[in-house]
Structure formats: C-alpha cells, structure tokens
C-alpha cells in the first residue's frame, strides 16, 4: 500500500475494474498510448490492450453516442471528456438517452456508463480548460453526479460509479489532482454514492463544499479554530443524489451554514442546498445562509483566475458574518 495522489487513485480504480470486469472499457481522446493529457489512463492500454482502452476520433458527440450505445449492449464504458469545457457536445446524448434509456424502455435497455470529466480552474490552463459546470446536470433526472476530493474518495467513488447500474457523471477536481498523497488500499472496495463526508467536526458553523474548494474550506476551518470558532466541514462528494440529512444534522447543531463552491453563484448547486435549508431547516438556522462562490461571470484567463475563485479569506468573512447572528 502506497501513498498516492488523487489522479493516481483514479488510475488505480480504473485498473482494478478493467481487471475484474471484462465488460469495462475506457474510451476517449488520447487515453491510449498517451495515457490521457492528465495521465489518468497512463499505462492502461499497455496492460489491457487497445480493445479495452480505446482512442476515439476527435468528437465529443461521437464519444457520448458510442458510449451510450456500448452501455446499452452489455458493456460498462468509462468515457473521458478531455476537459470540462469540451463536455457540452455530450449533453444531448447524456440527457436525452443515457439518463432515459431505463425509463423510456421500462427497464429493458439500461445505460451503465461513467463520464469522467477533469473539472475546474486554478491550473493556469488555456480557455475552456477551467470550468465548473456541474449545474448542467444537477437538474437532470436519471443521472448521478459525483465529485471526489481526496485520493481515497476518488478510488472508492470511481469504483462505485463504474459498478452503478446507471449513468454517472464523475467530475475530477483537476487543481487537486496532485495536491497531496494519501494511502489508498487497492482492495476494490467502493464507497456509497449517496453519503456526504464529514471531514471535520464542529459546533459553531457548518461549511459545506465539494471538489477543489475542500482545500480552501479546510484551511478556513483551521483558521477559524485558531480564533476559537469550531467549524464543521462537509464534502458533499455525491452531488446528486444529495445527502441532505447529513447537512441538516450538522446545521441543527451549529445553526449556521456557509456553502462554498467554485461555479458561478446564480443557480449553482449551492442554491439547491440553500433551498433545502430554507425548506427543512429554517427554524434551526440562527443566521442567514451564506454562499461563497465563483462570480456570475466566466472564469477569466489565468492572469485573473485566482481572483475569480473562492478564497480562504472569503470563506472566513462569510463564516464570521454568520457568527454575528444568534
């Protein structure tokens, strides 16, 4: 057992599943001999052959459509969108077909597929390589949307996603692909797809987040602790379906909630969490809900991108605003 990065955990999970399930195939642009532009599939084609790890023509519509086709004929394809910003041409096949085959045919045809999407900003990449677009899918019934934020969670959630009988959009926060290493047991153990992770216990304020922002959020919790403020940190990880109960339990305790996400604020997934708080936890809250998010503009090219993203300072300020109440 070795300490590995988040992206190495992805590779390890893919290798495990390719090895143990014949029906699994990996496909996408440059996933073969090149091992993916982020090296997520490094070495897999050499090990499993070009019938299991398949380079596709350069067209995301093609990748999505072939994936749906294969999934409905007994395979478990794991497709890669090379970057978040190239995923949009896949939206049609995902929404109209992947999310509906089971529903449409009353269970006759199903679509057990995973779409892996390197996600989010902060890596000084070119345009369209830095998008936080999970909200495209969160209103779509029939999908699951997952985003791990640690090597262990990446491993366990990706295994679960591949084994799930339905389509899973699997966002990978690329900014933390190599942020730190963690020991991950390569035992093929999957994690549940509908349970939030409480990363830090606390009693004064609940910080809810996912993806790359887990980093800043934990740092903010640490800074708050230094000031004697106890923050609970929740990584929702399985965005859809949302495990609201865990959030609710926490807010019952703290009475305060700050939601942190990278996507633009308006109608970002944070809105759904805030909405459920307004519906189910109104009388538990002692302070207005706060959202710390990307601005309602496109993430700028890299010279300005860090000014777009939520920062530790902004999280701290929001947490303190909630503490002014109650």
């Amino acid at each position, binding site marked *: 057992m070795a300490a590995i990065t988040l992206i190495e955990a992805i590779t390890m999970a893919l290798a495990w599943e390719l090895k143990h399930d014949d029906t699994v195939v990996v496909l996408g642009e440059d996933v073969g001999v090149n091992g993916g532009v982020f090296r997520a599939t490094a070495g897999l084609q050499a090990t499993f052959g070009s019938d299991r790890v398949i380079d596709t*023509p350069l067209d995301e519509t*093609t990748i999505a459509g*072939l994936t749906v*086709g*294969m999934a409905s004929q007994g395979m478990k394809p794991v497709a890669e969108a090379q970057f978040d910003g190239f995923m949009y041409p896949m939206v049609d096949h995902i929404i109209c077909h992947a999310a509906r085959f*089971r529903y*449409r045919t009353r269970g006759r045809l199903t679509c057990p597929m995973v779409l892996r999407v390197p996600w989010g900003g902060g890596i000084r990449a070119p345009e369209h390589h830095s998008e936080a677009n999970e909200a495209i899918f969160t209103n779509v*019934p029939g999908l699951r949307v997952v985003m791990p934020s640690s090597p262990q969670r990446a491993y366990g959630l990706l295994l679960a996603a591949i084994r799930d009988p339905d389509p899973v959009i699997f966002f990978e926060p690329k900014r933390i692909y190599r942020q730190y290493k963690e020991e991950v047991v390569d035992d093929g153990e999957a994690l549940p797809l509908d349970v939030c992770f409480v990363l830090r216990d606390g009693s004064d304020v609940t910080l809810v987040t996912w993806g790359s922002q887990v980093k800043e959020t934990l740092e903010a919790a640490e800074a708050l602790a230094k000031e004697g403020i106890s923050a609970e940190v929740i990584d929702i990880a399985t965005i859809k379906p949302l495990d609201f109960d865990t959030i609710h339990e926490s807010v019952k305790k703290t009475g305060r909630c700050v939601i942190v996400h990278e996507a633009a604020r308006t109608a970002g997934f944070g809105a759904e969490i805030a909405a459920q708080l307004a519906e189910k936890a109104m009388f538990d809250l002692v302070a207005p809900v706060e959202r710390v998010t990307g601005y309602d503009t496109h993430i700028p090219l890299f010279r300005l991108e860090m000014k777009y993203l939520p920062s530790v300072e902004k999280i701290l300020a929001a947490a303190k605003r909630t503490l002014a109440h109650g």
Partner: protein
Amino acid sequence: MPTVATFDIEYLQYLGPDGNLVRDDLPEFAADRRVLVELFKQMLFTRAFDTKAVNLQRTGKLGTYASCLGHEATHIGIGSAMQYDDVFAPSYREYGAQFMRGVKPREVLMYWGGDERGNDFSGPPHDYSWCVPIGTQNLHAAGAALAFKLRGEPRVAVACVGDGGSSKTDTYAAINSAGAFTLPFIQCIINNQWAISVPRKAQTGAKTLAQKGIAGGLESLQVDGNDIIAVRGAMDFALKRARNGHGGSCIEFVTYRLSDHTTADDARRYRGEQEVKEGWEREPFLRLRKFLTTEGVWNEKIEAEWKEECNRLSDIEVNAYLETKTQPVEAMFDFLYGDMPHDVAEQRADALKWEGR
C-alpha cells in the same frame, strides 16, 4: 492534377415502377418467388395497420402518429434481411422493419398512445426503441457495433435515418466512427424527399445522400427504396460484408412520403399535388403486385383474402391497445434508476399520496 481518390455512387434497382425487371441478375433470395410473396404480404399488413393507426388518431384514440405510407418496401426489405441477434435502431416510422423483428402492432400504438411500455416491446430485447431526437440513434447503433466488434460477435447494427436526418451531425459521427473502427454497421438513409416541410434539396448540396458515406470511408450506395428486391439485395450484401468484418456501409434508399409528416402536420401547406400524384405512380405495391401477378404467384382473390386477414389481425392489436390500462403513477419513478435514490423515493411516496394511496 494527379487524382488521389475516386468514388462512384451506384444505383441499385431491379424492379421498375412498371413492374418490369430492369436487370436479370436477381439476387438469390428472389429466385424463390414465395419469399417475395411473403414480403408482399408483410407490406400489405403494414399498410393495413398504418391506416388503422391514422384512423385511431383522427378519432382521438391515439396521440400524434407518424405514418409509414409509401415506405413499406424499404422498411420491410431492411427488417427482413436482418438476423435476430443484429441490432436495429429505428427512427420512428419503420414499423414494417420492426414487425419483421417481432415488435407487436399494439406496442407501436402504446408508444404513440402515450405509454412507455410500448418501448418494452416483443422484438429483440437488444433493439433500440423509437428515437425522437433525430439521428442520435445512429451513434447508439455504432456503439453497439463497436461492442460487437470488441467482443468478436458476428452481429451487425443497422440504423435508419431520414433525408432530413442525414444533415444531423450525429449521422456523420456514426458514419465516421464506423469507418474509423471498421464497424459492422449499416447507415440506412431513408430519403423520402421531405423532412416535414423541408425538401431534400434544401438539406444539402450533395448530389446523393449515399455520398455522405464517402466522408467516413464507407461503402456507399443508392438504392430504389420502392423496389423491395433492391432493398433486400443491398441489405443482404451489406450485412454479409459487415458480418465478415469488412466494415460498414451507407445506403440511401430513395422513396417517397405519401402521407403527411405526422398526423399533426398538413403537407398541403408546402407541397404540390402533382408531386404526390407522381409519388403514387412510383410507390412500392404497384410494381410488386404486377410482377408477382405476372409471375403467377399472386392474384386479386389472394389479395382480397389477405387484406381481410390483415384487418382482422390489426383489429386484434388495436383492441389490445385500447384495453391497456394506464400505468400507475409510481411507474414514473420505478424505472428511473436501478437503485432508487432516497429523494426519488420520497417523491414517489408523495405522488402516491396525491393518488390517495
């Protein structure tokens, strides 16, 4: 300038509109005239069904319905050539092909009657259901073909799309994938001259729709889609080629939509009577009836008897459809996920509550 590549689009036809053979090298299957009689009977059945379906819609007993009037030779030629293990990906009006594969007429009616169970049909369970987003089915079929190839199965995926759908980017993607991966895939382009109100010539500057296949390096052919011998012959050839690992084909079937686009459409708004009249002169029954009659294997009496049988069989199906009870409200939750998430389960309970259950 040196020429680095040359392509021909050939045109396949055996039976002219007048019912005479235009060439004498009939494909093998057609040697047995009884096979042709069976195909003709299927065509007649399909038309009888289609008429009933349109009437059901007109009397408020069916939702919007897309008639297959005029396409029967193409549809049945395609369906009859395929094997059970092959995968069929229809658009929405290829009932003739689906009947050949075991789909029941009542299932067609259920689908257009607003009941998802029509998609859980009696045809091969691996066949695709009707596909409303034009052209997307082509890529699913290509994906199926990729699965067959990877698993080494001697199966072929066949997808149908219209002349309008030949403009759809998914069609190109399917054709290109089939060429890039040498897939057992057949792209049938059913050119009935109209995409709702948009005529064939407004779809593309391409002289033929068959040549869409050239862009992906597929075998590309144009076929008289009103001549079932040609349709079946072309399909037999393409299926064999694909099954033997030699790759995909793109076949344009030239036919004519004799009906409105769907029952929600009024084609008189945008096309002239003369054109439709000419369409009726080239339609598929006329010529096959003449040919089979000349060959002595068909006559008016057989036809009258068979038509009666078609009506009887169709009525059974129509009644079965009309007697189908609406699904209970929970059906809209129960087939959404394999493992129902907690939030969906809560909403299911809410929906039941509103039903007083």
